[in-house]
Every structure is written in C-alpha cells, then in structure tokens.
C-alpha cells in the first residue's frame, strides 16, 4: 500500500525556489487503480517521479511522508532506492516507441529485467518471459519474443512495456499517460489489460492522465490536481459524478460528451477571455468583405498516392495510397467533421485541398470553380485567400521570431486588403479582441503566450485573410480540455457570425459530435461512412464507426452535467 502525506517537491533555480507540488495526500491500496488527473503543469508526473525516486536533477522532496508498505521511501540510500525501483515499483511510460531499446530483442530486454531482480537461470527467466507475454495477450509468444521492438505495432509495444513493468511482480506501477499515444481501439485493449492486472495480481496502479474519459472507465479512485495542489480526491463515481470542488466542476463541464450535443461549453470566465465578443471594428471589416456567398467544397474521386519505399534499384517503387476515391461534399455554411485514427489520411486530405500536395487524380471544387491541384495552383489563385487553415500545433504554426503584429498583419498586407501600415496594426488589434485576447498582444512574441492563446492568435490570422472556407486540422488536440472548450466555443461563434464553411478534422469523436453538422469517417484513406452528425452518432451503419463509438471511453450519462 502506497501512502503519500503532505508531499512537497521543490525545484531550486537561480530565481528562487519553485514549488512544483505541495500538500499532496494520497493512499493507493493493492489492486486499486488510482487516477491522477489534471491539466498540463498540474504536477501529476512530478508526484509519480517523486514516488519512484526519479525527480529530474535539481528537484528534491522538501516535505512529507512517502511509504510503500512498511518501507519509508524517503530514507533510502541510492542503492536501496535502486533495488526498489523495478522490484517493487515499476513504471509505464507514455511513448512505447522510445521506452524500449530498439537494438535489443524483446526477449533480451525481458530476461535482463527479470535477472536484475531475481537470481534465476537463463532458461527459467526465458520461460517466465514467455508466460508473461502470453498473459498480457501476445499470441505465439514463444516465437514473437525473438522479435525487435520495431516489429511490433504500437499497441503490442505498449503491452511489452507493461510486461516489462510486471515481470518482477511489483506492488505498485506508475503509469504516466500510458494510452495517450495510442488510437482508441488499442487504448481500450491496453486499459482492459491494466484493469485485469490490477484485479488478478493485486497490483496498485497510479494512472496519470489528462483524459477524464480514461479515468471514468477504469479508475477506482481519483485525485484531481491543479497547479501542484490536490483539488479533490475520492471514489471515481463520487468525484466525477458529483464534484464538490468548483475546479472539478469546471473540468467536467469542459469534457465534450459523446452521446449528445450541447450548444456551448460552460466556461469559467477567466484570464480576460470575455465570453461576449467585442472586436467590433474587426467584425464589421470581416462582414463587409463578404463579396462571396457561402462557399462549399466538393471532392470527386480524389486519390493521393505517394512513392513508397524503393525495393529494387531497377523497378519503380510501389505507390502508397494515402487517399482512395474520396468523395466529400461540404455544404456551404456548414461544418463538416472528418474523423479518423492516426494514419487514416485526414491531414493528407487537408494538404490536398490547400495545395500543399498534388493529388494523383480527382477533382476538387470550391464553390462552383475547379480548384487547381498542387503545383498547378498559381501563387495568386483566389483560393489562396478564400481557403485558410488552423493547424494542430499552436507551438509551430506561429513563426516564433515574428511579433504577433507582424504575423497578423501579414495576410492584410499580402492580399492587399489594407494599404496603410497603421491601419493594418489597428485591425489586427481589433481582431485579437474578436478572438478574446487583449489587443496589446500585438507587440509580443508567440512564446509569451500559452497554447490556448496561441491557438486564438492562429484563428485570428486565418480570419484576417477574409476566408470563406476554413480547415481546422485537429485544432484542439494539443490543448487541455478546458482550453479546448474555449476554442471550440470560439469557433462556433465565429462560424455562425460570419457564415464560414468549416472542415473540422479530429480524431476525437466527442469533439466532432459537438462541432459538426455532417460527419465523415475516414479509415486507411477510404471514407467508411458519411452523413448528418446526429444520424451517424445515433445510428452508425458502418462496422468501423460502430467499433469506434463503442471503444471511445465515455462517462456514464448520470455523471455528466446538463450542459
């Protein structure tokens, strides 16, 4: 049993001491899955690192008790701590790509770990390794064990990581975002495995995640953290179903439900992001720019092929089909949701529409006009202005060496909307207000803003081109759930205000349900199903859609707030 009392971790720096976490209390019983949930910077991972004794360099435990069973984890010599790590406490990391050694076979890695903690012969260790792999659901384990990590898929690799974690029969496993890098189908398998291990082997799990759906699905108890402090702790149904702390309530309000649509997210009014849009100048300017009516987009038999790996010097490489005969009709003024797992071709589709890649066949139409593909689209083609994009990663979509003012005025100058430089700055500032930011931001640089603020700036930049068609490629997947709610609200407001047509790309079904009028489901470059969002979610026809929907972690309906 893990007991944490009054834990505080501090990081000394030359600007004084930074308190990463303080007053953290937590008890995890054997066989219990304890969810640790919070947004980025909440100190969740620091708790895990403190328990396993792997705090990064200057950080140290300043205060509190930390004990596993009757061992005090704070009084250990480095050697004793090393003994306990792996033997009694194990860890599962987020990214199975990097937590396995790519140059060693699975067998060697498992045997190495087993022999490091118990004195057994090679053959006994090998037998145990094979048994373990079978237990965690790898078929044909005796053969597969000879393989290297890259020969396994992402989900299988994460199973191997779990096998490594349990091969010494630990009492406690710290799982730091174990499913964040995985697709939903794989995620649900890994979560099932974790639940089974907790039940059968009585292992205590500390499950660190930002995904409340995952917590709702498997955690017995949950602790909600924010800014290094525990906000609320208790049994999962009680904390998520009837949250008492205002922060937990706000967090729950921000989680998009999968089974119904809410008009707007309830967002606590904070950080100067006024709910009411005030950027009047910008609004007028945008409205007067509507010389084009609502603009839709149609794709006809769109195919994208990439050159595959070259297998012979003399043969042409086999093409890799990224998109196959995609037909898509985005109605003018509507939001089309595009759902798919990683590698399904969502981003390829966006790039084909924006002309960054050249489709091998098919026709694209913006409104009534044919959209020239790839390199055939001249730099001055009107679609370069009418179609704008909001990217996934707000950290790389803004040029970090340019002022916000320079970033925002660029479209105004480039498309020749406003000739006067002062007027451009004024309009950019007004646009910042429109997207809920302080107008004095124009003199700052992107790194001075948080992810959510940057995404607002990215939206402002797209709007300043006076677009009629907006592509949002996973606009919120890099953001915390409460920020996601704000950005989704903003996009909804702007869409209804300016009659934009939006192609909304996401891997998150719940988000698409909240945003889209129509939804298309993409899988391996093929559209599996398309239809009105309400229909598609209520009565999915394609098997794939049904599977996706059933595997997405959801909260029981009675836990959800009314919205």
């Amino acid at each position, binding site marked *: 049993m893990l007991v944490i009392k009054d834990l505080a971790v501090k990081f000394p720096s*030359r600007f004084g001491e930074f308190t990463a976490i303080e007053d953290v209390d937590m008890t995890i019983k054997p066989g219990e899955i304890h969810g640790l949930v919070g947004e980025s910077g909440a100190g969740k991972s620091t708790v895990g690192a403190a328990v396993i004794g792997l705090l990064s360099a200057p950080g140290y435990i300043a205060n509190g008790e930390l004990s596993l069973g009757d061992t005090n984890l704070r009084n250990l010599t480095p050697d004793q701590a090393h003994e306990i790590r792996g033997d009694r406490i194990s860890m599962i990391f987020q990214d199975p790509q990097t937590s396995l050694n790519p140059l060693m076979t699975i067998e060697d890695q498992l045997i190495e770990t087993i022999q490091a903690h118990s004195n057994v012969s090679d053959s006994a260790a090998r037998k145990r390794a094979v048994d373990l792999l079978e237990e965690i659901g790898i078929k044909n384990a005796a053969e597969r064990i000879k393989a290297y990590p890259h020969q396994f898929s992402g989900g299988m690799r994460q199973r191997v990581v779990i096998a490594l974690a349990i091969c010494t029969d630990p009492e406690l496993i710290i799982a730091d975002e174990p499913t964040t890098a995985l697709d939903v189908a794989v995620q649900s398998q890994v979560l099932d495995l974790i639940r089974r291990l907790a039940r059968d082997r009585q292992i205590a799990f500390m499950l660190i995640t930002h995904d409340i759906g995952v917590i709702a699905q498997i955690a017995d108890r949950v602790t909600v953290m924010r800014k290094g402090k525990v906000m609320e702790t208790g049994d999962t149904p009680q904390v998520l179903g009837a949250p008492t702390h205002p922060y937990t309530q706000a967090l729950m309000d921000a989680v998009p439900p999968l089974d119904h649509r809410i008009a707007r997210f309830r967002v606590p009014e904070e950080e100067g992001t006024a709910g009411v849009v005030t950027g009047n100048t910008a609004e007028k300017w945008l409205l007067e720019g509507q010389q084009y009516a609502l603009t839709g987009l149609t794709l006809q038999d769109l195919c994208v092929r990439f050159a595959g790996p070259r297998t012979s010097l003399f043969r042409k490489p086999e093409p890799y089909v990224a998109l196959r005969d995609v037909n898509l009709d985005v109605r003018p003024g509507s939001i089309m949701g595009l759902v798919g797992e990683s590698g399904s071709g969502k981003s390829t589709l966006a790039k084909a529409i924006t002309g960054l890649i050249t489709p091998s066949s098919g026709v694209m139409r913006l409104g009534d006009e044919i959209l020239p593909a790839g390199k055939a689209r001249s730099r001055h083609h009107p679609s370069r202005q009418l179609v704008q994009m909001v*990217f*996934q990663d707000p950290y790389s979509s803004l040029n970090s*060496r340019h002022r916000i003012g320079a970033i925002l005025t660029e479209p105004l100058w480039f498309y020749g909307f406003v000739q006067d430089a002062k007027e451009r700055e004024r309009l950019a500032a007004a646009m910042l207000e429109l997207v809920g930011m302080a107008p004095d931001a124009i003199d700052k640089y992107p*790194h001075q803003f948080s992810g959510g603020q940057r995404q607002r700036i990215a939206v402002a930049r797209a709007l300043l*081109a006076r677009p009629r068609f907006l592509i949002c490629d996973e606009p919120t997947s890099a953001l915390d759930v409460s920020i996601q709610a704000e950005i989704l609200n903003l996009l909804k407001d702007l869409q209804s205000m300016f009659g934009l047509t939006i192609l909304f790309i996401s891997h998150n079904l719940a988000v698409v349900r909240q945003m889209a009028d129509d939804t298309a489901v993409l899988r391996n470059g093929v559209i599996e199903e398309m239809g009105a969002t309400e229909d598609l979610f209520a009565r999915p026809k394609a098997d794939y859609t049904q599977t996706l929907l059933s595997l997405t972690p959801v909260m029981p309906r009675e836990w959800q707030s009314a919205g």
Partner: protein
Amino acid sequence: MVAFLKRYEGLWLFVHSPAAIIAAIVAVLIMIGAVFAPWIAQVNPYDLSSFSLFDGLLPPVWQEGANPQYLLGTDDQGRDMISSILYGARLSLIIGLAALTIAAVLGVGLGLAAGYYGGRFDAIVMRIADVQLALPAILTALLIDGIARGILPASMQQDLRVAVLTLAIALSLWVNFARTARASTFVQMNKEYVQAAIMMGQRPSRVMFVHILPNILGPLLVIMTVDLASAILLEATLSFLGIGLPADSPSLGTLIRIGMQFLLSGEWWILWIPTLFLVALVVSINILGDFLRDVFNPRLR
C-alpha cells in the same frame, strides 16, 4: 518576459564562465589592436623608410641587448615586432572576415534553397558540396591562384593576391554553412508556420528569408564564430606555405614563415611571438564559439 530571460540567461551564463570572459577580453583586445593598428603601431612595416636595418634582430626588452623602444624586439629588417603583428593581425582579420562573409552568403543561400526546393536541386548542390569537401583548402587555393595567374596580367596579380586568397578560403568554408542551413531548413519546412506561408502563396524567396532564415540563425551564428577561427588559420597556413601573401605585406602566417628562418639561430622571438599571438586569437575565438553553441543549444549544457 521570457525573451528578456533568454537574453538574461545568455548574459548570466557568460558572467559565470571565466573561460568565455577571458576569451572575449583577448579577442576584443586583439581586434581593437588590429583595427587601430595605423594609430597604435609606432612604425608602419609596409613603409620601408620608417624603420632601419641598424635596429635589426633586437631581442625583447627582458633580454640583454634590447632597445626599450622595441618592447618585443625587432626582426632582421629592423621592423618593430609589435607593429608587424598588429598590421599582420589586421590583414589576417580582414581576409578572414571577408572570406567568412562570402562563404556565409553563398553557403546559407544555397543551403536554404536546397532545403526549400529539395529534390534534384538539393541533390546537385549537395554533390557539389561533397566534391568541395574532398578538395583540401590548399588545393583550392592553388587552383584559384593558378587560374588567376593564367587569366590576369602580371601587373594585376600582385594587387589581387588578397582577393585570390579570400576567395580560396571562402570556397573551402561555404560547405559548412550550406550543410547546416540545409539541415535546419528541412526541420523548419515541416513546421506549420512555413506551410501556412506557402499556402498563402508567398514568394519562395520571402518564405526562405523572412520566415525560415530567422529561425535557423542560431546554429549558423555558432558556425560563423568557429569558421572565423578556421578562416584565420587557413590564411595563416596558406601564407606560411607561400601560397598566400608575400613578405612585403605580411599577415600573421607570413610573419611565422619569416620567423622560421631564425628558429635555429637564437632569434626565437621572431617566430614565437607571432605564433603565440595567432594561437591566442584562434583559441579565444573558438572558446567564444563553443560558448555560443551552449547558449543556443540548452540540451548540451
């Protein structure tokens, strides 16, 4: 705030790095000396009338038989060592900086374009760079020297020695810039801000120079300092071997070459003083380059 801290961070690291401080002081002193050589030096080593053979081979002041007028002694022509070194360093630095500028403009331009366009253009530029790397700088210098001798009339050759030398050094240094610029550009090309700019339909030159270049400046600056040291050393090597500058307009390399003749006859200062001076200059520039790399690359810290 963070921008300020970053700048502050560099300064903080600088104040806490004695090696960097000493290197900076040495480099700055040498550069000031070189820039103001005509005002500081008591004799002009290029002006035959300003020194006399009677003062030849005087040792530094701390040795017997020295003339206190010449602190570090004189060479066989009676030239004051300090003045020769200051003028020599001036020439070395001019050639080094000019070569560096040419190399940077050529290399960064080609590297950026190679990274931006990719494909065939990239392949051609990089193969040329590979060939260039296979040729030692001395060979390049000899080649350019030979071509210059073949094309130019004899009267111009002497005047153009500096230009030929500069060009030779620049040609052997541009590859570094091209490779770094290309690799960094590849990284930036995948960033979404670049895709946004391309999507808008901005001119390739604008995307390259306004958007990408400021973002890859860090590693390029580091290469610049390190390559400045290389350029000065290259110039010294070439001059030492006699391909570079003639004895009547001595750079540091030429001074060392002249000094070699006196190594075994007891007049050690004629060789050692310019050599130590060159070492001090190159080492301090290199230390500054390493320091800059640390500032720009926090992961190496």
